[in-house]
Structures are given as structure tokens and as C-alpha cells.
């Protein structure tokens, strides 16, 4: 990806990210968040991570819509917009952020930049297909088939990782979701039995 597009999308992401915090109107904040996610999704796509990019839009934009509904339902928008900014914590926050960014810049400065850009190192589908392990008789390797056809099977690769290397972690995440569902019901239900 040419650096021009990288810069454009990064700027979109950062500017709208700042707007999320700066905006006094919660609805405007939520909308800025959507735009910021769009910029992030574009950056993922530029790194050949199409699936993550699409999920970023589907899941996060969807989640933000829900957030939106909550804002409209629960918050008093005018009172939120009138709230005064507390100067001292804000300056403190800005200083801390600036220190973190400076730190990051200094760390990145000591870093050797990569020798090749992504454009110069295209994906080698044939080599990747050849490196796939053999599958048992009667089964077909759809990932290998996609790679031979010069398609990137990113969803399949992700699924393969998830179910061969991390099935245990997936189940822990299931427990996590169960606990949070129970928690949401407990904390928000009008009358408990």
C-alpha cells in the first residue's frame, strides 16, 4: 500500500479518535467513534488482513449502534453537553499522554526500519500451498485449494488456528461471556426474583 493512503487513513483514525473525547455531545462522540473504526478497518485491509478489517466494521460499528441506542435511551443529552470540563485532570491527562507518545517516539527511533515494504514482498501462494501438511485419505484441504487458486483463505486460516491451537481458550472465553451475561441481567433487571 502506498504510504499516502496509510497517512490518510491514520489521520482519519486519529482525528476522529480525538473527537470522541473532545465532543461534548454523546451522539457526536459515538459517530466519531464509527468513523475512527472505519479508518482502522482500512489500515487492516491495507495489511492484507481482510477478515479482521471486515469484522472491525461489522462488529464494532454494530456495537457502536447499540451504544448509540443506550445513549439516546439513558442519558440526558442536554445535561451531558452542559457539563463543565475539569481543567486540572484534563491537563494531567494531556501531559501523561504526551509523555507516553514521546516515549513511544524515542523507542521507535532506536528501531531499525524494515528492509522491504509490503509491496516488494508479495504473498507467495505456491510456497504456502506446498508447505501445508498432508491430510488423511478422503479429506480435502480447502486452505491448500484456495492457496493454489491464488486466493488468501484468511477466514479458514483463522478458523484453523482457533480450533486446532486455541480450542481451550475459546471455551474459557465462553465462560467469560456467560458470566458477563449473568452480570448484565443482575445489574440491570428492574425486579429481581
Amino acid at each position, binding site marked *: 500500500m502506498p504510504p499516502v493512503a496509510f497517512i490518510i487513513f491514520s489521520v482519519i483514525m486519529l482525528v476522529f479518535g480525538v473527537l470522541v473525547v473532545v465532543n461534548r455531545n454523546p451522539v457526536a462522540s459515538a459517530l466519531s467513534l464509527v468513523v475512527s473504526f472505519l479508518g482502522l478497518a482500512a489500515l487492516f485491509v491495507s495489511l492484507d488482513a481482510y477478515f479482521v478489517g471486515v469484522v472491525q466494521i461489522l462488529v464494532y460499528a454494530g456495537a457502536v449502534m447499540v451504544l448509540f441506542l443506550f445513549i439516546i435511551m439513558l442519558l440526558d443529552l442536554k445535561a451531558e453537553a452542559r457539563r463543565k470540563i475539569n481543567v486540572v485532570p484534563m491537563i494531567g491527562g494531556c501531559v501523561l499522554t504526551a509523555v507516553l507518545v514521546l516515549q513511544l517516539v524515542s523507542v521507535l527511533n532506536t528501531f531499525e526500519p524494515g528492509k522491504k515494504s509490503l509491496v516488494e514482498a508479495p504473498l507467495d501462494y505456491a510456497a504456502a500451498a506446498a508447505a501445508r501438511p498432508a491430510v488423511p485419505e478422503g479429506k480435502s484441504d480447502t486452505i491448500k485449494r484456495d492457496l493454489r487458486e491464488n486466493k488468501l483463505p484468511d477466514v479458514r486460516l483463522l478458523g484453523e488456528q482457533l480450533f486446532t491451537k486455541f480450542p481451550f481458550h475459546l471455551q474459557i472465553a465462553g465462560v467469560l461471556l456467560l458470566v458477563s451475561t449473568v452480570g448484565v441481567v443482575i445489574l440491570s433487571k428492574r425486579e429481581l*426474583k
Partner: protein
Amino acid sequence: MGNFLEAPYLLEAVVVVLGLALLMLEAFLPKADKRLVAYIALFGLAGVLVASFNMKAPENLEHSFWSFYATDNLAFFYKNIAVLATMLVIVMAIEYTPVLEKYVSQGSKQGGLGEFFCLPVFVCAGLMWMASAKEFITIFVSLETVTISFYVLVAYMRRNVGSLEAGVKYLILGALSTGFFVYGVTWVFGLTGETHLEKIGIALQGLEGSDSAVLFAFTLILVGLGFKVAAVPFHVWVPDVYQGAPTPVTAFLSVGSKAAGFIVATRILQPFLEMERLHSSFTTILVIVTGATILFGNFAAIPQTNFKRLLAYSSISHAGFLLLALTCTPDQFQLTPGQVVAFYLATYLLMTMLCFLVLTIVRRSTESDEIAAFSGLHRRSPFLAFALLIGVISLAGVPLTAGFLGKFFVFTLAIDSGRWILLAFAVVGAASGFYYYLKVARAMYWEEPTELAAIEISPLARLALLLLIIATIVFGVYPAPILGLLTN
């Protein structure tokens, strides 16, 4: 994956199934006394505890699918701590039901209490996964299971402003610290291409190029861990959250969350500290955090008048002593820093749970957490006063109690590896500990009570208190059983 009974995750699976069964029970028996759920949870966890002592850990997992899962003595030890802490928290929760009914149920009898007994069981499973995790993704998912359950538990008393405020604070700061932790993990992954701690250790040894990137990653991870174990300067949430949360949850945060944080810290710090080139830099960062934690935790505890808040600062100061052990590289001392930390946490569990159990019972009958509410406690209930006395003198580190031996091992380790400045801080901190812990003892024995009505104790709580008192004294004189579990 072989026979289920030989699976390395067997105990955790049983705990999760227990939690699910309790949720079902709660859902399908709406008329039953909700405390039934708690009794079954206690019974089931006791079974798990007994089974864990009789289990033989599967070996040679390094090259199998389970290479991310530790089954060493340390992992089992921390699993026992998690189960024991959960059981004591459930005993406390049963004592706490009247307070919960007031702030949760609103009208309906025991409304919404069942989940309060179920959630700790899931937290327990999360703590047990953390005890075994030696790979960043495992650490992350189990850590989040624990933390998200705690967000719910802290804010559980939803008609109480203090509990809600504590919940919001914990949620926001917890999310921030998780962000730092994950960012640090991505840096480590970017540098080494590994999420597995042992492989990271090897990759770091042979790493060429910029040191500052490794230091940056280490610091970011330390921020996340510091939040979990309540180390200064990431402690700001501790006093408010501890004070606002329901007392059993505070006890759980103080013991369970801290213990799991320390086993993860022990495992994560190891590959970094083994990196010879940057060993001194990492140690310097740790030493600064440790020194600040010991001094701040102990000095800020001195002026406190609320017992729960006092225990919050005490929790910070104990985190300082534990971190001190982690900064050490022992020369001749036969226990490793990881083992000393585990021993300290086991004694910390006994004495802290003792204090919180007494606090729960006193809170129920006086509706106050202030130290003033403990005035003349020995006239109202000599047994409770004695239990709390044992608890606070053990926290202060009086000889012949379990707390003394924990501190003794830490100090010996510090002398052995020549951490003289930190040792001086620790001695000053421990000395000031005597003042603020014994303030509670003075209130109980030398001050006049405001009322004289005797305080009722349920048989279950009496049994738990009795066992904790005996354990605190016995392990203070004869620590061999705990050490045996650790070294074996």
C-alpha cells in the same frame, strides 16, 4: 487429548460444571432458600480441594498440545489457594445475606442473591486457569474472566451508591490497565514472535538490536500486573473499590485476585529477569515500584479510621513485601522467590480472611465498617475479639503467628541477595504496621462499647473462624506442611 480423568484441566472443568449446575439450580428452584446454592457450592468446592491433594499431575506436557498449561507444584498450590479463598468467601457471603437483601433485593425476599453465590465459583475457575497459564493468550483470557466477574461482583449492591461508584471505578481503571497489558504483550510478540513464556525467554536471550523496545514492553506489562496486585503507583483504585464493594467481594479481591496476579507475575517476570543484558535495568524498575509500594501502603494506612479502608492499605503494603521477594535472586537460601511468594500468600489468605470474616459479622450487627464500631468488642463477643486479635497480630507479623514466618522468609531472602535499601524500607514499613494493626486491638480491648448486645455467630462461621485461628497459630510454629506442598 486422551482420558478425561488424566486431563490437566480436570479440576477447573469440575469447578465450571459446578458453577453451571448452581446457576441451573437457582433458575429452576426459584422458591427454594437461596442459601442452599451457597451450601452446595461449599460442598462441591470442598470436594475439589480434597481431590486436588490426591491428584497426580500429568507430566511431560512440554511438547504436547498442553504446552501452554503448567502442572507444577506451584500451579497446584495456587489452585488450592483459589479454592480455599472461594470457600471462605462463600461462608462470608452467607453471613452477609441481610446486608445484600437490603441493597439488592428491594422488597422480594432473597431476590437476586443466588447469583452472588454462583459468580465466585466462576471466578475460582478463572483463578485456577491463571495459576496454570504460561502463555500470554491463556493468561489474557483467564485474567479477563476473573476481572469481568469482579466488575459485576463489586457493583453487586446496586441500590448502594458506594458499591456502584466502586464498580464504575474498577471497570474504567481495569479496562485501562488491560489495555496497557495487551499493548505490552503485542510488543513482546512483535520482538520475539512468541506468546509462550518459555520460548519468549529463549528468544530474548538471543535478541539483537534495540534494548529500549524490550524495556518498553516490560514496563507496559508491569503496569497491567501492578494494577492487579495493587502496587504503587497503580494502586489508586484500591481504597475506594475495597471500601465500596460488598465485604465478601473485598476479601476475594484482596486474596484471590492478588494471589492470581502474583503467580502470573512470577511466571511473566522470569523470562525477562533471565535476560542477562538487561537484568539490572529490569531489577531497578522493580525495586523502585517495590520501595514505593512498601512505604506508601504502610504510611497511608496509619491515619485510617475505617477498618475496610485500613485493610485496603494493608493489602497494598503486603503487595510491597511480596514484590520485594520477586526482586531477589537468592544466593544460598533454599527457597526460590516464587516459593517464598506462594508461602506468604498462603499465610496472607489465612489472616486476611480471618479479619474479613469478623468484619462481615460485625458489619451485619452494627451496620458500620469504622474501627469505632469495634470498640469493646471483647465485651460483646470474646470469641470474635480473639479471632480478630489473632488476625491483626498475624498481619502485623508478631512471632508465633503465620504472618511472622511469611515476613521472615521475605526478609531472609532480601538479606541473602543483598537488597539492603529495600530491607530498610521493609523494616520501617513492618514497624509502622504494628501501630495501625494494633489500633484495632486497642479499640476492641481497651475502649468502652457503645452498645452491649451480644453478637450472634452462625455455627458455620464459628467453625470457619476456629479453623482459621488454629491454622494461623499452627502454621506460625510448624510451617512444614505448607513448605512440603511447595517443594515436595
